[in-house]
């Protein structure tokens, strides 16, 4: 049996929930809806928050909050074979209970942890690297193209930090974003990226000041291009204002 879900984390957990109750021996894969399968029976699972919450609550009480955290972050890394590996992770967790966290020698569980680490690292890096532009209406707008799906887990940081502003973080590859205004946070779909961004009057001047600052702060005698690139990979450069038009 191949279980399909809508691509969300709660959808995935609903599929796990159904699979668990029908019988884990028959699970061949857990995949996102829309892919076609030549062989095997298919079963569409509809996202049910209650089912998802039951798994999460059980996981939290039996194995600790860190286990849930790793599961969510590993899911967001969007690895191609995540369905079965994450299912196995959940089974192992329920099997080992509070010993699960110190069980580091199992290779597949280790792999899941690596995925979670990948998402966590990218989230942390992007918390610093995203740049807001002030639009003419006063809204702060930022676009990024992250490897892992980190935008949802980045939002709380900026809610704490900029509660009085209206802002959007736009993931251009996944066509989605986070929109915050007046204390309300919502996940939105952005089907087509804006071609022209109408920035505020002062925006260009502050960008110029920041670029100037960025260039002056480097010490010429210590120049180390390799080190900079290791910390700030080139894949992010197009979205970082001071790195646009940078040579190389």
């Amino acid at each position, binding site marked *: 049996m191949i279980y399909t879900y809508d691509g969300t984390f709660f959808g995935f957990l609903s599929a796990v929930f159904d699979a668990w109750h029908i019988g884990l021996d028959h699970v061949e894969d857990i995949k996102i809806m829309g892919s076609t399968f030549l062989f095997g029976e298919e079963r569409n699972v509809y996202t049910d928050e209650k089912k998802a919450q039951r798994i999460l609550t059980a996981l939290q009480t039996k194995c600790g909050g860190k286990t849930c955290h790793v599961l969510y972050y590993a899911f967001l890394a969007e690895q191609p074979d995540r369905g079965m590996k994450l299912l196995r992770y959940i089974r192992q967790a329920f099997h080992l209970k509070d*010993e699960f*966290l*110190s*069980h*580091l*020698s199992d*290779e597949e569980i*280790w792999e899941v942890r690596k995925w979670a680490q990948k998402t966590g690292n990218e989230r*942390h890096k992007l*918390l*610093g*690297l*995203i*740049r*807001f*532009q*002030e639009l003419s209406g006063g809204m*702060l707008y*930022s676009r990024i193209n992250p490897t892992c799906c980190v935008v949802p887990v980045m939002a709380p*940081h900026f809610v*704490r*930090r*900029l*509660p*009085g*502003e209206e802002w959007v973080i736009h993931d251009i590859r996944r066509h989605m974003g986070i929109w915050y205004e007046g204390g309300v946070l919502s996940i939105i779909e952005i089907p087509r990226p804006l071609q022209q961004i109408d920035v505020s009057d*002062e925006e260009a*001047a*502050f960008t*110029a*000041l*920041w670029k*100037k*600052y*960025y260039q*002056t*702060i*480097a*010490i*010429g*005698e*210590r*120049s*180390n*291009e*390799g*080190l*900079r690139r*290791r*910390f*700030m990979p080139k894949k992010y450069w197009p979205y*970082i204002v*001071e*790195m646009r038009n940078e040579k190389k």
Partner: protein
Amino acid sequence: MDWDSMQRKLTILSDAAKYDVSCSSSGSRRANTKNGIGNAACSGICHTWSADGRCVSLLKILMTNNCIYDCAYCINRCTHETDRAILTPDEIADLTVEFYRRNYIEGLFLSSGVYHSPDYTTELLIRTARKLREEKRFNGYIHMKGIPGADRSLIRELGGYVDRMSVNIELPSAASLKALAPQKTKQSILLPMNELKNGIAERQEERRRSKNMPSFVPAGQTTQLIIGATPDSDRTILRLGEALYRKVNLKRVYYSAYVPAMQDANLPAVVKPPLLREHRLYQADWLLRFYQFSADEILTEKTPDFDLQLDPKACWALRHPEVFPVEINRASYHMLLRVPGIGVTSAQRICAARRAAWLSYDTLRRLGIVLKRAKYFITCRGKFYGESSCPDFIRQRLILRERSGSYEEMDLFSTARP
């Protein structure tokens, strides 16, 4: 805002501030307030990296590069002819908030030349900090300089607004200080440091009783030492660092390779900054703070300087063949930390993992241990995987590794080697 004049001032004042190494924004948990903007992230967040590979986390500028002092190594010395500028508290506060909103920075690092007098300069710093915290309701990270010679009450007042303060020692011995910075004394530097230390300790005690007490320099104080401008040995510098950690409770000591920006009869004729020496000092500094080493273990009287070919931890291990190899499944956490190739994270992982299973060699690789270094110093299930435990042989192998590694800085370092 007058953009052209702002651009000019920012260029002068950031250029003058760039030799201060510290840029971390960690250690403070300041929360946002009602209708406020910003908070501090305890882990610290880097916002960009400049062309020299150093992280930029704070808007690091001088309030003014006007200075009454004449320190030989400093580009802002009063006898040096250069463009001078001064930013008002309003300008600094506006710039900080606008950069912060755009997520360019984590906060402000404000330093200054000594303008008129230490007290006058500190008063201007206080005015800037108060403007940011009270008028702008800014709760991001603020790091400010303690000016040597300023009145204690002013230092205390400033400490109430900021997250971190630092007083730079710069020159690692009294003799060097006398030669290169004749207007400063050891006493004038240590006084504000001690004042801060006492202030932090008192407030911590008060906060234990009442959570509502306002914070006082919650991210602690730091300092900076210049490397290579004076003949002081690495051992002198490292022991000074250790004393500062133990006696003044510093959070960090920064080491800055001397960049020959100025010329003076008392300064050495350095062609390139001693970057590798600086790197070794940082490695040793980490050993002091996280690996339970003491300065006397890292550099002995016989070897007062670092081995530039090999890192200090490996050097210690090679000097002490009698304690190795250690058995991974049995060694204490303290001993695991001393094995080259095992860091704090992997030592903790080993301790956690061996509670559940008898660790095999393959598991070690997965736990993040650098086996190409560690294999000469460990046994796993009783088996030794390095070919020989002779120190000379291991040394050759480790040096080979370090050279052939993907370290791009190595090219730079090898030319910097004396």
